[in-house]
């Protein structure tokens, strides 16, 4: 029997597979098609202070080996997440839950982290700093090390659970930003969020997405994500949740060899509702084939 357990800042996952925020709803709906307790954890849809409708339609476009989304952080707001969504998930899911938090100001991050951190079920807080930073004029908090560090310090001051900063790949030097987060007290790093992309509709000659640009994810971005995990692993000593295009157990092993302690699966769930399940189930066989007994042993093994 192979050992698939991994350890994220003291939180033990039975395996490293975590459906990525925004691609698995609030999780419970997947419980209707399979037992989601086989998953290591779940990162729930990004939550903001207030209810958000998000962007106008269309929000989705297809790309070669991937997709663009411009959901715009639609979510019911933190109060409803706490009062309705988390209890529903808890009923069908007994494993650690990762709460994904977004904000348009430092205040909003702090508010959400403080509230959600009190929830017993939530064992890790994932702070998405890829959303636009309104103060700095629309660039996201995650694209400059100073801003990333500022958010980290602020949320660490109030968060009752380990805080993982989720980084944007639309940057010149991701290692620098990760290092700034570590320095500011982050317990771990999640990466990557989506690469900004777009498509144009040849029928009306306008951008497909109402928002013009959207976030690219899926297998297309896997090599970029892997490289960034590699670079961040060299720059920090806190755990990394690696993601970006992961679709198979092989991809999980590559991510872990590059330095990820756990791995999130995003677009793959959208393409195939059973994707995370298939990955969890094929992992032990692959480990046997590759001669891996203890999954934790391979973290960063390719360096």
């Amino acid at each position, binding site marked *: 029997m192979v050992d698939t357990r991994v350890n994220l800042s003291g939180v033990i996952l039975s395996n490293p597979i975590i459906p990525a925020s*925004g*691609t*698995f*709803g609030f999780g419970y*709906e*997947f419980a*209707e*098609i399979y037992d989601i307790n086989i998953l290591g954890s779940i990162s729930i*849809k990004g939550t903001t202070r207030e209810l958000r*409708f*998000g962007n106008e*339609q*269309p*929000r*989705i*476009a*297809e*790309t*070669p*080996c*991937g*997709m663009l*989304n411009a*959901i715009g952080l*639609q979510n*019911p707001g933190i109060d*409803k997440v706490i009062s*309705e969504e988390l209890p529903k998930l808890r009923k069908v899911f007994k494993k650690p839950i990762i709460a994904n938090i977004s904000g348009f100001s430092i205040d909003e991050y702090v508010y959400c982290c403080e509230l959600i951190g009190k929830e017993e079920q939530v064992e890790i807080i994932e702070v998405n700093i890829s959303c636009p930073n309104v103060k700095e004029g629309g660039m996201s908090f995650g694209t400059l090390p100073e801003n990333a560090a500022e958010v980290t310090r602020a949320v660490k001051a109030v968060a009752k659970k380990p805080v993982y900063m989720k980084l944007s790949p639309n940057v010149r030097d991701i290692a620098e930003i990760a290092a700034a987060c570590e320095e500011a007290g982050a317990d771990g790093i999640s990466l990557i969020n989506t690469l900004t992309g777009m498509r144009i509709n040849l029928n009306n000659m306008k951008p*497909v997405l109402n928002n013009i640009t959207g976030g690219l994810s*899926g*297998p297309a971005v896997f090599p970029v994500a892997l490289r960034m995990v590699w670079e961040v692993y060299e720059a920090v000593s806190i755990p990394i949740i690696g993601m970006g295009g992961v679709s198979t157990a092989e991809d999980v092993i590559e991510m872990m060899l590059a330095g990820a302690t756990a791995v999130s699966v995003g*677009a793959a*769930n*959208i*393409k*195939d*509702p*059973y994707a995370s399940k298939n990955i969890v189930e094929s992992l032990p066989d692959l480990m046997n084939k590759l001669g891996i007994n203890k999954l934790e042993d391979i973290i960063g093994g390719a360096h």
Partner: protein
Amino acid sequence: MKCNGGSPGDCFRAVGEKGTIKMKKSIFTILSNRKLAKNTYEMVLKGDVSAIKRPGQFINIALDGFYLRRPISVCDWDKDSATIIYKVVGKGTEYMSKLSEGAELEVLSGLGNGYDTEESGVNPLLIGGGSGIPPLYALAKELIAQGKKPTVILGFNSKDEVFYKDEFSALGARVLITTADGSLGIKGFATDAFESAGDYTYTYACGPEPMLKAVYNTSVTDGQYSFEQRMGCGFGACMGCVCRTKYGYKRICREGPVLVKEEIVW
């Protein structure tokens, strides 16, 4: 079909299959794939149709070489096969049109709420435009099986695009055809046939948004309107297809594609 306010999910549970997704992932085999009209094809798929419960539901088809699935309404189904009708509008549907008998497709079936036939009354009016027509076929079939007398308005651009006229008639429905260029039936849009349709007890519509809106404005009864939206997952996970309604935000793939008239926000 009554829709109460509430968050996405609630509404679905109130009207759909009582909160349980019947979605199934399985392999279907192509029994036939033939051209019906200009750019329009009919494909019959053999496989496990047990998840398909209502007219107006759709299936989501994985195609080799395309990352996202293609959502297509179920036009008809029996115990072990389902029929779809699709228009070639891009690379994915073009690829579909070239598939041969015997080819296998991986499909998610049983998606969406579908039409509710309970409140139709005796003389429901069914209005479809172009590639919005297919789901009305199974709907007309079910209504007729329930002893109702539907009138069906089928709107096309031109005669060479007309399909399933005879099939609808064969079901026993009264059929009115409109073409934008007047090459067949009534000249004009589907709504231009309202007068000829006479009295009706309820309205079912499916088609492009401008048509739905015209029907909404013309129809004097309650009704159900089926919407299209670009989809990510097709089963409720990604929030890709969400629209505003009077009772909150709804996922077209799950609380839809069918919305009741009273909740629609244009």
